[in-house]
């Protein structure tokens, strides 16, 4: 069973509001991923970290999405100005190393933008 902890489980925001979600990776896992899963079950990779450093990220030119994984604190994903299209399940995952190892997912934060 995954020990990736995500909070909150559910988040409701109005359009234009900030939305922030947190993730505690499984103990000992230095690599953290964020994915967005939409209502059609499609996954979209957002960003991943190794310790505090970004490994890879999508082009967040909209600048509405930001993420960080500070040492000794939960990782976080924040949407600066929520839009209806951001409504989705945001999944945090962690692994022992970046490539070719099992990735463990948290239960997700379901964001609804009204």
């Amino acid at each position, binding site marked *: 069973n995954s020990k990736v902890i995500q909070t909150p489980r559910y988040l409701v925001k109005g359009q234009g509001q900030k939305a922030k979600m947190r993730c505690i990776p499984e103990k000992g896992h230095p690599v953290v*991923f964020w994915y967005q899963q939409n209502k059609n*079950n499609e996954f979209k*990779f957002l960003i991943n970290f190794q310790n505090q450093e970004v*490994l890879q990220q999508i082009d967040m030119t909209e600048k509405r999405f930001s993420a960080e994984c500070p040492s000794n604190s939960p990782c976080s994903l924040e949407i600066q100005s929520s839009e209806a299209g951001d409504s989705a399940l945001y999944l945090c995952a962690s692994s022992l190393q*970046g490539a070719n*190892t099992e990735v463990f*997912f*948290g239960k997700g934060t379901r964001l609804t933008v009204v």
Partner: protein
Amino acid sequence: QQQVRQSPQSLTVWEGETAILNCSYEDSTFDYFPWYWQFPRESPALLIAIRPVSNKKEDGRFTIFFNKREKKLSLHITDSQPGDSATYFCAVNTGGLSGKLTFGEGTQVTVIS
């Protein structure tokens, strides 16, 4: 460009039958292919994975068949059980050392008894 494709979109089988799920990918350099399953209102979990050094990986009733030349793989679920009803995602490591996974669209499997 869709890097990972799955078919069929949905599949219904009787209990005890074999379900066959298909996956294809674009880039021959991809080298890690996990399958995840996801139950309603749950997060995805790793079911089974294969690397191109093998053309078959078996774990109980679940078997991956891998065809590197055709860039295709399939997941066979033998003796399907109602508890196998879930959405199955083929994934590929498209991020190299970063481990970024790209997921297919998923196949929703329903096993009826």
